[in-house]
């Protein structure tokens, strides 16, 4: 029954481009992109509680891979290459850093985006002698939307599957207490690494799919740190360790920011900051958990 409902919802979303204006389609693309990013982020960061600010590092890598390869390879191969590059980098990064915990991990991931950006800049300046690449692919906004929708659905499906698997259980134990996890025989490094690589691959693919809309890519454009922050706050707002939490946080926030940018163009960063504070203080576990708590309290009163 539940599966049918989800399939029907997906079908409606897939047909939506035929019913909305171009701007409506733009909104859909934006919303689905952030749902994918937030869900992909939460795949690793939700259960393990490792707050990662490296979203844009992988997102940018995806965009850059497309920019480099879009004229050399057919499009499906470009996407596969992007996923492979993202996974490979996540593997290296994960192996070397997942021992870090807490604030050190946060700072490292933030630095990672900057590091990747500077490396690409250095490479382009000293080796290729050009900065700024063009993506001329004949993809319509609809194509991009459908790809992103498929990726988003796959992400949520994957998360649902992981949640029920041994891996999901292991991840939750790691998130609760690493020492306990290690003592119960969970291979910490492998568990964290698998989730990190899966999550990073999704983020990379999201960047790759979104990039043809920009036409022009340079490091400053591809590695815009706001994307990392938005992803985190969206996932936290909805509830990072729930299946539908990130999606539930992403859609309303995306729409609110869209409305703000039209009506309060100068003050958007202030709202972003306030929201950050509000989410952390008022809804530390996200809206879904907050609602449940409310309901439970209501139940107690009645009882």
């Amino acid at each position: 029954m539940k599966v049918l409902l989800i399939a029907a919802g997906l079908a409606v979303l897939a047909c939506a481009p035929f019913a909305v204006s171009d701007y409506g389609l733009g909104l859909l693309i934006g919303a689905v992109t952030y749902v994918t990013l937030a869900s992909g982020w939460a795949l690793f960061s939700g259960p393990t509680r490792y707050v990662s600010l490296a979203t844009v590092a992988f997102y940018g890598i995806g965009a850059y891979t497309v920019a480099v390869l879009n004229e050399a390879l057919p499009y499906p191969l470009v996407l596969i290459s992007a996923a492979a590059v993202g996974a490979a980098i996540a593997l290296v990064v994960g192996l070397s850093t997942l021992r870090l915990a807490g604030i050190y991990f946060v700072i490292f991931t933030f630095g990672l985006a900057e590091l990747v950006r500077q490396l690409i800049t250095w490479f382009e300046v000293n080796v290729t002698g050009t900065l700024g690449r063009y993506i001329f692919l004949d993809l319509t906004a609809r194509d991009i939307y459908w790809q992103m929708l498929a990726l988003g659905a796959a992400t949520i499906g994957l998360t649902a599957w992981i949640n029920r698997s041994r891996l999901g259980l292991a991840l939750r134990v790691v998130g609760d207490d690493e020492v306990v996890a290690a003592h119960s025989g969970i291979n910490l490094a492998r568990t964290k690494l698998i989730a990190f690589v899966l999550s990073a691959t999704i983020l990379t693919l999201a960047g790759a799919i979104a990039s043809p809309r920009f036409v022009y890519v340079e490091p400053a454009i591809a590695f815009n740190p706001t994307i990392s922050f938005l992803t985190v706050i969206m996932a936290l707002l909805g509830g990072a360790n729930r299946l539908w939490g990130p999606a539930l946080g992403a859609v309303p926030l995306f729409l609110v920011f869209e409305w703000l940018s039209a009506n309060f163009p100068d003050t958007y960063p202030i709202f972003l900051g306030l929201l950050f504070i509000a989410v952390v203080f008022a809804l530390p576990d996200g809206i879904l958990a907050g609602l449940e708590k409310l309901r439970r309290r209501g139940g107690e009163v009645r009882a």
Partner: protein
Amino acid sequence: MTKISRRAALRALRCGLMATATLSAGFASAEGETVKIGYAVARTGANATGAGITTIPNYELWVKTVNDAGGLTMPDGSKRKIEVIEYDNRSSNGDLVRSIERLASQDKVDLILPPWSTGANLAVAPLFAKYGYPQLAVTAVTDKAPDFVKRWDRSFWMLGGGHDYANGLVELLSAALEEGKINNKVAVVSVADGFGIDLIKAARPAFKEAGFELVYDETYPLGTSDFAAIMSEVQNSEADSFVAFSYPPGSFGMTKTAQSIGYNPKVFYISVGGAFPIYPGIANGKPDGVMAIGGVDADSSAIKDYFASHTDSVGNPPDSWASAITYASLEMLEQAVGRAGLDHEALSKELSTGTFDTVVGEVKLEDNQLRDLFWVGQWQDGAFRAVSPAGKQGASAAVIPKPEW
């Protein structure tokens, strides 16, 4: 002290509401009369500074000027006021693309003005083409403009490419070399970003061909704030000419460092930022002789009027490079609408083939590009004057060697 009773307050409120209602009704009935113009510019984020100096003030100044004069003149002689729809693109291309879609498909504006920066203009070019709007891309420096014109035939590129600026500078310096005013050694630094790389790539062969030797040629990362090491190496390099393909922070930092270590090359050239109105302040009131990218015909009365009205409405003078071109692009649009109306095809054709009278003089595009530009300017007696190309009307003679700081 006036005491406001509740009744009075309510009455005032009611009056206010009625007035608002009447006003909005008035607007609604006059809606057919306005021309809706939309733009999505960077109000926040990394591009906000650039857009805030070059793009937004000119858009606002132009709209105000046109509306104060009764509105845009249509081909039939009627006047229609401009109604602006503005979005913040948050310096993110994703948001920018969506905003343009919104302007085109949701708000159905009559005209769309372009955003600031090369990347942003390229990101929206396919959309302008898809919806048929003419795109007067001013703040985009690109050598690929001819290709873009082929790809998007309603795009117009008005600020030249990296090659143009590099070649303009080399031409100027080689004239000085021939006259024996400078030696053939040049020290070059460039910022490791799209703009700096484009220019240095074009400048290296051009310098070589003109018989110059690059005795110092280094790049520095975007965000560098300490130029002491670079400048002292440059000082010891025996080069008479110092050339920096830099962004504003670098341009300003190098100027201050050169002054503090007493580095006085015969040619001191910086790039973006040198033409900013705040530059003389940065240079401690001694900008004279400094060369930079851009330049205007400082003696033309149109430019003088433009600087005055910009100072009036914005509070400070415009920069002497892309600002005047931005304003000129809007004047072109205004005149093209007056001749061809708001039909996008006719309008684009008029922009492409017509001749326009603007603050930078008479403008006629070649292959949808503005080629008749100044490449190098120099501070002379407190004004930033164009010095290259030397033959172009309105160019001043370059002062070489530069007076000491």
